[in-house]
């Protein structure tokens, strides 16, 4: 009787030990995955900042004015050439 109980407990112990090992292994691989995702997130943040910067650099007023004047032959509006419409007026 005691022998069987011992055997059963031993088997249980071994099973537990193995499950600890596998759980630890799983935890670590999941952790590595998490790490990877976090560093990807950081990289995306950096990319985003870079893109915002690019947007500002490309969209800065000095550049737009230069392009409009040089390539598109545009010129600034003046009040003399503007027709103002009043809401509700005939």
């Amino acid at each position, binding site marked *: 009787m005691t022998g069987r109980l011992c055997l059963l407990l031993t088997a249980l112990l071994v099973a537990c030990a193995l499950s600890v090992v596998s759980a630890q292994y799983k935890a670590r691989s999941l952790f590595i995955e998490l790490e990877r995702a976090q560093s990807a997130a950081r990289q995306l943040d950096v990319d985003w900042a870079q893109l*915002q*910067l690019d947007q*500002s650099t490309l969209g*800065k007023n*000095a550049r737009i004015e230069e392009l409009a004047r040089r390539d598109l032959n545009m010129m600034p509006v*003046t009040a003399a050439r503007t027709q103002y419409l009043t809401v509700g007026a005939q």
Partner: protein
Amino acid sequence: MTKMPPRPNLAGSRVAASKGVAFSSNPILQVKLPAWRSRFVLFVLFVAFVALIVRALWLQGVSTDFLQKQGASRYARTLELPATRGKITDRNGQVLASSVPVKAIWAIPDDVQAAPKDKLVQLAKLLEMSDAELRKKLDSDRSFVYLKRQVEQDTADKIVKLGIPGVETRKEYKRFYPEGEVMAHVVGFTNIEDAGQDGMELAAQKTLAGMTGSRRVIKDRLGRVVEDIESIREPHDGRDLTLSIDSKIQYIAFTQLKEAVEKFKAKAGGIIVVDAKTGEVLALANLPTYNPNDRSVLTGAQLRNRVVTDTFEPGSTLKPFTVALALDTHRVTPSTVFQTAPGKMTIGTATIGDSHAHGPLTVAQIIEKSSNIGTAKIALGMPPEEMWEMFTTVGFGQQPKFGFPGAVAGRVRPYKSWRPIEQATMSYGHGISVSLIQLAHAYLIFARNGDIIPLSFTKVTDSPIGQRVISADTALQMRRMLETVVAPGGTAPQAQVPGYRVGGKTGTAYKIEGGKYVRKYVASFSGIAPMSDPRLIISVMIDEPQGQHYGGPVAGPVFANVAANALRALNVPPDSSVTNIIIPKEPLEESM
């Protein structure tokens, strides 16, 4: 217990197993050894055990900390978690300053010396320096030298690919300023360690700078992080800062100022645009300026934020405050007449004068024609204390509170020491010094129906509560007078804006060098637009213009162009149908 079977004769049964001698009859057993020998063995064993126990105690008890540390250092690592400095954006979210990770390239000189020649040549090329320069840097006794800092990621990757032993990289941040010189004085810049040095970068250093965090981890054989072993100290990124600046208006102001400074070959210039409704600074530009992305050559003149840190004698732009005080205390009305002929007036031993003799002028005309004598006469009818109080309440001579580094207080002498001549000259802006930003701030009382609100460099969400200085009636009367200044009969017809009713006051003042007035001028203009419902205050200052030196023709057009474009950019409806501007052939010159 079961009964043991009778012991057989051992000698007999084991005979076959051994080689003829039973254990019990082994002759060695017969040998009589001295008792001390076994005791000696026992003792030696005992001593050995004691040694083991002592060693175990030593390891476990005494040197356990050291050993555990050594163990941990073989698998645990502390990682630094970098925090990014906050971005600076304008009021519409356009990025004005942003940090991007770059690499610092450093080397262990001894290790690099062994590298093949051609690789070093490639390295020098990637670092954009000559071979000799690189060799000079490597020819060092130290075990750590920076080869180059703030190297962009792509280049750094190529350098790593070269695989030169002893060349390493370290992560750092570089701050980029896409708007460059246009925004330089407002935004400021950071040093190589990412700490604010000037402008808003310095003013908001505390909130912009992040807090680096750290974590302790276990790394596996391949260098991958497998587990955290302590709680993580989270990094806190710096907070983003939204300025009150509108980059569109800033650009307009900067280009117009630049045009004027170049046209009049002036030494310097400054402009500030303030939103009269909220007290926000919409634009602030200075010339000469610098490119914050490349600060290898910088002079003090370029760095100077004249609008905030330089004071000058404002001249006639101060007259409206004297007149407003007189109106507000009911000492005069806009139609009260003062005799300004013959264009000269002697107070004590000094004589002041107008550039033209005007004869009798009403208070309104005194502002329109910018008469010194008229203003002085109004001022002399008031106690110095009241004038001093007026100047002080609108901020002159007071340390500004808009949280910008280097802001100066200017100088208004205590009223007790004013002599009549000083009171007279101060009434038209001489013998008193203010900064351009203080001047623009003070003009809020005219633009805002008599109250004054604090200026702000950051975006304002709720409208601030004003402090009343003059009555709304006085403010309205003053605005009417300021409007006449830009009319064809005033001193600044060049400041007219097509489609909008505007007003302002010109200022022309001698500069002081070494305590004496010299024939160098500061031309300025402070204006309000549109007059029907003031939205903008624009103050312009041109330092030492050549050819022309009056505030009207020099600073007036800058005001007009900035006002016209800024009002359109802000979608302010026009309040005048006049689209043709009449500028008389010989406009009136103002008095100094």
